[in-house]
């Protein structure tokens, strides 16, 4: 029997809106908690003078427990009758947005949690915007702490309308809006007896509806070269197929050099194979002796990505030190790594309010999004993010650190 692929989802939302508590509740209701872990949480809750606090299951750092906040993203595992899940918990505090992005970039779906009392707050909006930038399109909105608003339908509708209005403006169409109480368990695994006015799915049912990301097998071949090894006097090129499939004998084109040749063999340790699919890490040799290098992109003639040195992107700055336009950056897109500069910052945008801060700006501050034109020093092979995510997204490096992430919106 093959083990089913788990579904990865991230829980995001404003600080204190109840992310960690919701996760604790899911683990508890699905019987995923080992008694010794539960005992440990009870003991630590008592030591901090609280009732059993599910958040301690995830907030493991001493500072997190003492301050009652999540600092860094974490992952936990649980299963329902239908399948396995990986839950990615993401911090809600503004200071830790880069940790939230780290968590959310690994997810196939997202749960946006909103406090029924507080309603839509700064990080509710910023996180939603980040989800749209990351290309997540399976989103469940849960309105939490319904027990604190007497399970009022009127309050639910109000908060729902507020969040919906914002999500509409950034083109997010959630799968569901669900009224819950994480702490009491209403509409999590079991239907609430307190909200007869709600006829939709429980949270668990809505999770079971989510789908795994489809494999990119039907798309055109993209195989970025990761490295070249010499094994027993044989040069083996290695890389992960990001889209499409490949087999021995296939004609290929190499970007950016435009050389053409064919695949001689597919190499895997102790396996005989002549075909490989998107997602597989393979070795391969070519029929002609061409010298490949890290960053070369293998594709098919007639179905190439665009090779250019100028394109438009939305770039999210996540370093405390603001970016000033005269700084040179290094762009990394798949295995390509090229020096570049930001030619124009057409718009500087507040990532929470979406307010336009400045046009033709010369800087980007922490957590701001820029609509930018990027000029690379050498040609780079790219696609629009909406076509092939793997070649349409990038990070920027400054002083050996990742300082920004971005998606390619238009090819020049």
């Amino acid at each position: 029997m093959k083990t089913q692929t788990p579904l990865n989802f991230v829980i995001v939302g404003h600080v204190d809106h109840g992310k960690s508590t919701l996760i604790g509740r899911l683990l508890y209701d699905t019987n995923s908690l080992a008694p010794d872990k539960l005992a440990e949480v009870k003991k630590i809750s008592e030591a901090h003078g609280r009732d059993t606090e599910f958040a301690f299951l995830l907030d493991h750092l001493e500072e997190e427990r003492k301050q009652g906040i999540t600092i860094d993203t974490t992952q936990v595992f649980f299963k329902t009758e239908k399948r396995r899940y990986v839950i990615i918990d993401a911090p809600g505090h503004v200071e830790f947005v880069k940790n939230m992005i780290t968590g959310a970039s690994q997810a196939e779906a997202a749960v946006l949690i909103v406090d029924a009392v507080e309603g839509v707050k700064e990080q509710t909006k910023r996180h939603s915007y980040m989800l749209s930038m990351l290309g997540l399109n399976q989103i469940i909105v849960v309105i939490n702490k319904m027990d604190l608003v007497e399970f009022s339908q009127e309050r639910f509708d109000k908060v729902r309308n507020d969040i919906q209005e914002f999500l509409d403006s950034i083109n997010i169409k959630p799968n569901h809006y669900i009224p819950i109480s994480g702490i009491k368990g209403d509409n999590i695994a079991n239907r609430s007896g307190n909200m007869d006015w709600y006829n939709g799915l429980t949270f668990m049912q809505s999770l079971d509806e989510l789908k795994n990301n489809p494999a990119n097998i039907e798309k055109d071949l993209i195989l970025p070269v990761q490295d070249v090894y010499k094994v027993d006097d044989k040069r083996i090129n290695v890389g992960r197929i990001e889209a499409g499939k490949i087999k021995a004998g296939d004609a290929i084109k190499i970007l950016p050099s435009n050389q053409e040749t064919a695949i001689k063999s597919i190499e895997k340790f102790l396996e005989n194979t002549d075909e490989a699919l998107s997602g597989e890490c393979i070795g391969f040799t070519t029929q002609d002796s061409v010298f490949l290098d890290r960053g070369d992109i293998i594709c098919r003639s007639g179905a190439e990505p665009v090779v250019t040195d100028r394109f438009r992107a939305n770039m999210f700055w996540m370093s405390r030190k603001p970016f000033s336009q005269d700084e040179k950056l290094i762009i990394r897109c798949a295995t390509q790594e090229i020096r570049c500069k930001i030619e124009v910052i057409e718009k500087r945008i507040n990532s929470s309010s979406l307010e336009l801060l400045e046009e033709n700006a010369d800087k980007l501050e922490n957590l701001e999004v820029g609509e930018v034109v990027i000029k690379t020093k050498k040609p780079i092979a790219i696609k629009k993010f909406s076509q092939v995510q793997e070649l349409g997204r990038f990070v920027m490096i400054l002083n050996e650190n990742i300082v920004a992430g971005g998606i390619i919106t238009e090819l020049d």
Partner: protein
Amino acid sequence: MSRSLDHLDKLENQSIFIIREAYSQFRNIALLWSIGKDSTTLMWLVRKAFFGKIPFPILHIDTTYKFKEIYDFRDKYAKEWGLNLIVARNEDAVANGMGPDKSKFECCNQLKTIALKQAIAREKFKALLLGIRRDEHGIRAKERVFSPRDEDFEWDYKDQPPELWDQYKTKATEEEHLRVHPLLGWIEVDIWDYVKRENIPIPELYFAKNGKRFRSIGCECCCGPVESDADTIDKIVQELKTTQISERSGRAQDKEDDYMMQKLRSLGYM
């Protein structure tokens, strides 16, 4: 024929991608092999990544308190797999009689962390491959795939670098090294499913004898067995599906103090 990748295929490919990424960026790396099921699985993946010819050393931190079975297993497979094995000990601490009877915290710190520090300084490794998993311990769940350690070996868990879309922090300053965690996304039962599918050899300690077996192995003095009749991989997998006891419940360093694991890890423990 329409082939598709199953869950174990996906995990395997993701791990191989990470291993190759680490080697591509640094070249001067090592695999930290504790001879347990996880780092032995990692070894298997590293062999796959490099077509059976691992181009870097395998580092074993020897506290001198390991089970005899661990030493025997290490020597057998180091030979069979043609490994470039480096055994590292904190010789001074061993000579001075450091042991768990002094203090468990100090013992782990001296015989594991300091021994590792000495080995890294001697060999000038820029990155280490480690077989830790997120589901083992809440602190490990907070880890990045590429996780920097400063010159004092400290883990700055309050300000970790962002990591997105398989783009990792791969550059390190002179003083730093990176811990690379290719198995971070695996869970315990994945390891066993994979060990079975690939027929990976692992030490006998994991299999039940006389009603007891080890779920997690390390130093003989600080590992307790669990009650179990699971003497085959199938029975172990079955046991994991029904057990209510967590994996590291037999490991002393996780329990001594609420934050002992965090303190050990921030000092550079694995």
